[in-house]
């Protein structure tokens, strides 16, 4: 992948946090963003990562890397997110040289990460029963310069199996009924040992899958769920309460002054505005220097989000050795 944007390059436009768009650079075209018009011509020749001016602001032009692609890709199906994807790669021992089988291709979110991990000498065979989706994914692999690492095929693997035999180090299934594909998986995994992962959103699917895996001699079967929690950055503003007892200690002489009692604030509730503590203290500080306005401290915190993904799916891993 070259580092410079060219005619025909796929570019991810970063407009802000979780605001990403994908375009394909085409001379003389214009793309409308919330920061105004972006001329494709302005992209050509720029390094990926560059700041590009639009008519009313700027964006950053990034290359197609799996994490961003997962956030920006056109959703043709529900997609896998990075927490699951990352764990799948690790648990399936996917590494350069691995031969990996994937069904279905879906929106290609996982495929891109698998390819990154098995480069430069591995290969991904990815199958999709929905013809259009398969074609679109194949085109994307092509556009992203990944064709040599992947074969995207339109095929109903539940009915027809994976075509190949004993070639795979790892198999990943995201199918509604993965248990029905187990025999095909056994055929395509290397005899000397291979790993399987199935992804299912519902526990009943997992139960059926585990049952079937176990009766077919799979070992080390384990099911996990992984949820990623992205924190929110927030400044917390904390004021300190001005305890009068402290002030007395600091300046005991002070008691004679004609200052008002904090607790007669509610005598007349209409002018609450007049009597907010800060106001009063400001007045007080004119007469007695010892009294400080209420201190407010700001502290940067990263706290859990009010809403986060609560469930994506269950990942079931297993190992099979056939001698």
């Amino acid at each position: 992948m070259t580092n410079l944007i060219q005619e025909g390059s796929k570019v991810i436009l970063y407009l802000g946090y979780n605001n990403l768009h994908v375009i394909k650079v085409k001379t003389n075209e214009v793309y409308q963003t919330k920061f105004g018009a972006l001329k494709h011509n302005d992209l050509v020749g720029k390094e990926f990562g560059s700041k590009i001016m639009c008519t009313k602001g700027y964006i950053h032009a990034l290359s197609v890397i799996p994490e961003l692609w997962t956030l920006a890709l056109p959703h043709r199906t529900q997609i896998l997110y990075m927490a699951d994807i990352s764990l799948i790669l690790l648990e399936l021992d996917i590494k350069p040289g691995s031969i990996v089988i994937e069904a279905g291709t879906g929106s290609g979110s996982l495929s891109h990460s698998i390819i990154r991990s098995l480069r430069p000498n591995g290969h991904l065979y990815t199958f999709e029963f929905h013809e259009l989706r398969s074609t679109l994914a194949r085109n994307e692999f092509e556009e992203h310069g990944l064709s040599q690492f992947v074969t995207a095929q339109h095929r109903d693997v539940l009915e027809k199996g994976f075509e190949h035999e004993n070639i795979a180090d790892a198999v990943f299934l995201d199918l509604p009924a993965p248990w029905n594909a187990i025999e095909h998986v056994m055929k395509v995994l290397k005899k000397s040992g291979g790993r399987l992962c199935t992804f299912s959103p519902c526990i009943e699917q997992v139960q059926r899958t585990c049952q079937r895996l176990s009766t077919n001699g799979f070992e080390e079967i384990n099911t996990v769920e992984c949820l990623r929690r992205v924190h929110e950055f927030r400044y917390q503003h904390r004021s300190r309460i001005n305890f009068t007892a402290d002030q007395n200690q600091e300046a005991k002489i002070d008691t004679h002054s004609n200052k008002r009692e904090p607790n007669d604030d509610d005598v007349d509730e209409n002018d609450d505005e007049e009597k907010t503590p800060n106001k009063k203290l400001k007045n007080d500080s004119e007469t007695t220097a010892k009294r400080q306005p209420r201190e407010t401290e700001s502290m940067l915190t990263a706290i859990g989000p009010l809403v986060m993904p609560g469930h994506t799916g269950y990942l079931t891993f297993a190992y099979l050795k056939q001698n």
Partner: protein
Amino acid sequence: MSAFQDGDHAVLTCHDRTKIVQIRQGRPIFIDKNKIFLDHVIGQCDGSYFELKGKYLSVADMNQAKELAQAEDISSDNAGQDNRDLCDDGTGNQTLQHDEIEQLKSDGVSGQEIISKLVSKSATFEKKTAFSQQKYLNKKKKKYIQIYRTWKPSIRLLCQAYTNDLQKIMYLRRDTLAMLLSLSNISHGSNVGIVESCQGLVLASAIQRCAGGNGFIFNLTPAGENNSTSPCCDFMDFPDEYKANVYSIPIENVGDLNTIERANQAKPVEKEPNEKHLLAMQRRQRRLDGLQLFEKTKLDSLIIASKYDSLSILQHLIDYLTLSSHFVIYSQSNETLLECYQFLKKRGGTIHVEIADSWLREYQILDERTHPFIRMSGASGYLLSGMIVQS
């Protein structure tokens, strides 16, 4: 279970929305800018069903309402569905226009009938899969069938009502509030100190747990924020005996023995003794009485869930706690509580000091489609808790 009376508060639910209202004869409430009268709720019981007819909530037959309100049995998401069958929801296929629907509504046509019309005028409904049809119907039911239920307020329902307004209650999630109450060991007869900025949710919980025992509840608020804890206490419609031993006192003056003296010296200027003024004087006196009482009382429980600096509050209040009493501090961030922990360790005389957070996972339990909800809260906040002992 007693019936609703004029002036009572009620919790109104409709689909997944929850709203706290006060029932007042002839006075409307507002939902989405629509005036709604609750007159017919008076005399009805907890959990009754109502249908919105014109501007009035009218009593609805339970069985009929139940059926109307119930969603078709489908999953809230398409998890577990063979997505081969998914097809576009096609919103452009409806020939019934928005204006026509509005007209039907103002003509008093029932929601059910409107939905029937929508279905018959939909170009694609027949072509949808059974799953998509159900999904479509549920969406329309949610929009056109307005079955309300009214409930007697409870802490659980208040938590539910604040779900979409969490910033008002410092993001205190219901499981965290529940745990806070346990850790405080509040019970009938306890002396309790509370510093909170949660609309009175914590205070109301404590008042309910004490149920007018012979202990005292001190609601410590900064001057000028006396009313910050009113909302939830009002919502709960507590009987007077529950409130008799509840004192709101100015937290600034805690430990300041000169306060009363100063207050007496600084007697406010004599105004005409109108009713409003008398009431204010009474309130003022009650705050002073509370303050005096507080200085003489040993607390069994101290709860801090305040937007103000918790450490200095803890430092000023900890010596009011008696032997074997309990303290709990809630904060959205750990850092605040770590400061308090360091102070406590240095001070000594505390045991079982813990900082904890919690996870709350909700589940969809449906035939062949069981899984946790696909959205959850990632913010439980943290609780620091412990006990005071002889050091």
